[in-house]
């Protein structure tokens, strides 16, 4: 069911992804598939303790084992690093950032923290040698609980003297004290605490690295399963003191990332450093358990949220206090993740300037956290959407009705919000109405009333999430105001070859999204050619030297728009050439279907193919015009883009076992114009399941000593297709007015929307039993315990 007023043509068609045949047949080459003779294999010696002083590292036995080339402790390599592992987002002037080296030297700070490494001729020899490295540890007390960390009872990093990394405040008031006044005058107020459990990103392809020294001159090629080849190049150069122009980074086929490959990791730096030192290629492939322990985790927050509302249920004030779990160290953008959510705590609702937000982030002896699909925005959306349900319960009205009373009215867009940010376009009531129709909202409420009677053991719950996403990262000046260490632009080159085939060079770096398909569709539409004639080049800093890569649902709204703008430049130049050859005024030329024609004289025309060849031969170009048909754009977006939608989840909870069954899941997403609705649906399906997984399945569990108890996929419950419901998708289309394609982005929408929709449904099912909140994941055991507690008993 789709409401669409999109143009017909290539854009908006459900074209199959050109990437898929290679992926599905196994022909795609991932980093670990690359065959490089003579490469040495790196293996890491990791701390089994969450916090321990490294007393000594004895490598003598390991280094004599067959096939072992070298063994290094952190101390051995301490002089190798020109700087510590990078954190690009110092969110405050006084942010504390403890030294973080690829191999710890004096103290290990989480289970999995690397303390030594081996390089050997085979992966097997390297793995065996790891067991022969004798590390003497003096175990120290570990800090796992966030509030305990905040107390500084035990300080993890002596060098900074506290576990607090930073406190970041965002208070926005019409007049001083407006927020407190709103709460004082509130007809209704709710105060809730939510726990965002840690999640393990678990991309299908684990991380993998291969560093290959080039034969002459000291150049180095780094292959990595990364989302961010451009950022990785700059950061590797800085950290290792290598001239940036001597480093080339290539991301081959990359099997998912979800933010976990938006980083600079120890193994990447070690492979480059050791390849340089030994003069041979060095490679490393992560095991799944290493992926659980030593690739960043997501989420990890304690959220305290308070809503104030007037007698009609309209929001009058909002107060948020966060404790962010940084883990043991700051990775690339770790401290910024809560800030990305700070602007979304009022969701899709009108809020006066009565907003009081503060986040304090702390170090713990667990794996570092960082951006994970949605990065701050799922957390914020969860808090406001759960709290809105609490407020509806408090007032005694339907949660959908409460939302409708608070939606920003469609006619107010573009809408300047309490934060000063301008929301580009929206139709929240439209999305909610469509979703309610598709799910059969009124009938479901009726069924719920008849089914959830006293004593019923199968109880229906209906959960809403009317979400907002801030994506299309990002206007560079806004990033500057947040102290982010880079811009938010994206680069594109469009090159029409002599035979009218087109090369597009993009700075985005796909890792499963289907950019090659989508970007070729944009070019095809713009130039009037077949998508099959468009080749998309990416993810290699030698071929695409400029770019800021793929994360934050930015690729289409920034990178795709840059391509469209570049196509316009190509057409402009081609128009000049065609006019010259047709002896017409350029203004009189029309361009359609890949052909220039003179208005009113249909017999005088010239196809783009002919223009391209003329541009190549340069035999007869206008005076002063450069040969060839090529253009370049670096586009800095004027605004974020603001996708939105309504998801509705219907569950049945078995109160005897605590099991939740999802009966129906409807996702209505509005991401503006859709380049390829098939890809949009795929993103929504995957995103919804990932969000649902946080609600019902996934949690990185640590014991009180800091041991990760979920270090394999037997314990860390990533759901499979058989464990999740079908997702019914619908769309409204509200184009963004801030870019020529009218697009917004959809990569994270499903994840952002789904988690609160599912938990709202579970809580709704149990509300008749006195349950007001259910912690995540809502496992059967947890739900059963919550019901028992609410019923005043325990079993």
């Amino acid at each position, binding site marked *: 069911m789709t409401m669409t007023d999109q143009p017909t043509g290539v854009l908006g068609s459900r074209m199959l992804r050109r990437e898929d045949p290679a992926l599905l047949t196994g022909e795609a080459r991932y980093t670990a598939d690359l065959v490089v003779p003579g490469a040495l294999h790196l293996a890491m010696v990791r701390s089994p303790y969450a916090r321990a002083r490294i007393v000594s590292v004895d490598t003598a036995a390991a280094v004599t084992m067959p096939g072992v080339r070298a063994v290094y402790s952190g101390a051995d390599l301490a002089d190798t690093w020109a700087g510590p592992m990078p954190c690009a987002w110092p969110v405050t002037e006084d942010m504390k950032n403890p030294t973080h080296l690829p191999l710890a030297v004096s103290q290990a700070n989480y289970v999995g923290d690397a303390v030594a490494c081996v390089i050997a001729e085979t*992966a*097997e020899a390297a*793995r*065996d040698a790891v067991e022969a490295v004798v590390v003497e540890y003096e175990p120290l007390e570990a800090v796992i609980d966030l509030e305990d960390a905040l107390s500084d009872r035990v300080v993890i990093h002596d060098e900074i003297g506290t576990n607090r990394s930073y406190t970041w405040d965002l208070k926005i008031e019409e007049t001083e004290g407006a927020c407190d006044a709103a709460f004082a005058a509130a007809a209704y107020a709710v105060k809730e605490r939510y726990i965002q459990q840690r999640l393990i990103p678990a991309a299908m392809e684990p991380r993998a690295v291969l560093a290959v020294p080039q034969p002459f001159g000291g150049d180095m090629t780094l292959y990595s399963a990364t989302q961010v080849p451009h950022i990785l190049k700059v950061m590797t150069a800085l950290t290792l003191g290598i001239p940036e122009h001597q480093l080339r980074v290539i991301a081959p086929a990359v099997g998912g990332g979800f933010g976990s490959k938006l980083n600079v990791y120890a193994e990447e730096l070690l492979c480059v450093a050791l390849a340089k030192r030994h003069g041979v290629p060095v490679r490393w492939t992560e*095991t*799944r*358990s290493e992926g659980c322990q030593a690739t960043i985790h997501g989420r990890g927050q304690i959220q305290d949220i308070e809503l104030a509302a007037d007698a009609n249920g309209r929001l009058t004030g909002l107060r948020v206090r966060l404790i962010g779990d940084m883990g043991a160290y700051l990775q690339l953008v770790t401290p910024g993740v809560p800030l990305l959510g700070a602007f979304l705590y009022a969701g899709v609702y009108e809020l006066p300037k009565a907003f009081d937000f503060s986040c304090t982030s702390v170090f713990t002896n667990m794996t570092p956290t960082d951006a994970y699909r949605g990065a701050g925005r799922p957390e914020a959306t969860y808090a406001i959407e759960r709290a809105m349900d609490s407020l509806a319960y408090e007032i005694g009205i339907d949660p959908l009705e409460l939302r409708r009373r608070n939606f920003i009215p469609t006619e107010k867009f573009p809408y300047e919000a309490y934060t000063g940010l301008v929301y580009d376009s929206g139709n929240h009531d439209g999305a909610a109405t469509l979703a309610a129709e598709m799910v059969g909202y009124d009938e479901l409420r009726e069924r719920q009333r008849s089914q959830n009677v006293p004593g019923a053991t199968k109880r229906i719950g209906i959960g809403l999430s009317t979400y907002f996403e801030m994506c299309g990262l990002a206007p560079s000046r806004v990033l500057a105001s947040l102290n982010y260490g880079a811009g938010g632009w994206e680069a594109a080159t469009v090159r029409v070859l002599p035979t009218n085939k087109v090369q597009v060079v993009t700075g985005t770096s796909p890792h499963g999204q289907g950019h090659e398909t989508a970007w070729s569709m944009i070019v095809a539409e713009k130039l009037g050619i077949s998508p099959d004639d468009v080749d998309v080049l990416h993810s290699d800093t030698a071929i695409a030297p400029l770019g800021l890569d793929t994360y934050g649902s930015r690729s289409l709204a920034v990178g795709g728009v840059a391509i469209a703008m570049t196509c316009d430049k190509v057409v402009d130049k081609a128009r000049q050439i065609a006019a010259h050859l047709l002896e017409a005024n350029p203004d009189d030329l029309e361009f359609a279907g890949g052909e220039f024609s003179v208005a009113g004289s249909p017999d005088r025309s010239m196809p783009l193919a002919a223009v391209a060849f003329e541009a190549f031969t340069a035999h007869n170009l206008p005076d002063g015009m450069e040969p060839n048909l090529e253009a370049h754009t670096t586009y800095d977006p004027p605004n974020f883009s603001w996708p939105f939608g309504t998801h509705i989840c219907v569950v049945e909870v078995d109160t*005897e*076992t*605590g*099991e939740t069954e999802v009966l129906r899941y409807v996702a209505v997403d509005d991401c503006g114009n859709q380049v390829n609705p098939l890809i949009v649906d795929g993103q929504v399906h995957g995103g919804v399941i990932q969000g649902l997984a946080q609600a019902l*399945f996934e949690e990185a*569990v640590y014991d009180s000593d800091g041991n990760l*108890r*979920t270090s*394999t996929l*037997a*314990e860390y*419950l990533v*759901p*499979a297709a*058989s*464990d999740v419901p079908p997702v019914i998708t619908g769309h409204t289309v509200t184009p963004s007015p801030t870019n020529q394609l009218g697009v917004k982005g959809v990569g994270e929408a499903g994840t952002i929307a789904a988690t609160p929709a599912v938990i709202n449904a579970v809580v709704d099912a149990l509300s008749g039993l006195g349950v007001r909140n259910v912690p995540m994941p809502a*496992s*059967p*055991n947890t739900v*059963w*315990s919550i019901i028992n507690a609410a019923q005043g008993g325990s*079993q």
Partner: protein
Amino acid sequence: MIPAAFDYVRASSAEEAISLLGQYGDEAKLLAGGHSLIPLMKLRLAQPTVLVDIGRVSDLSYIRDAGDHVAIGALTRHMDVETSPMLLEHVPLLAHATSHVGDPQVRHRGTIGGSLAHADPASDLPATTLALGATYVVTGPNGTREVAASDFYQGYLTSVLAADELLTEIRVPKMNGAGWSFQKFNRRAQDWAIVGVAAWTRGSESGVGLVNMASVPVLASSVSSALASGSSIADAAALAADEADPQADLNASVEYRQHLARVLTRRALSEAAG
């Protein structure tokens, strides 16, 4: 995920396998379908120095009608058990329980004998064969012996199998029209059960096996005794955890496991009686 170094020998017959086991002693492990052993080796939780591969001992893969019972060769793959017309007719509870083991890939490689000999109380088949009153045939250097399922399991991943013995056949009594039910409770379809119940009833007779409710598969004999003496299903099921001694893990507390055992037993008995 690289196992420690090990040697590999392939046995072409049960006799050769037993002889090899005798030769290598405790250092050796039998490799059948490999779906329990290989993951442990990759995590280096198991580091046998010799693997004796019995995967090609084809004369241990069969399902035969043996009169009052069905005889199943130990190397019969789960998929063959699950789809066997003979088992579907005479021991449907076992065929159905087997369809819940792991996922299709596991069921195409894993074997019934491998699953039982691994003696994991969280596996579906030990408790199911226990409930059915199965007998296991064990072959060693001095011939064969029969061991009742109820005598086979000694502790977590531990059975009465000696280091040089091989589980060769499973004899499962025909159910003769008994009602049955298999209740597997888990969070993901391919996982081990958090709690599972295999149950059959025929008149006043019954058998109830519990999955993952102790360090060994559990026969809930209190439930069967109560049913035999005329208790209602609800009253009998309330005794389901009496013989159990469950552990807590990430999925379930001890109390929750006990509760689930009672709920699932009630549901199983109701379905079996239905």
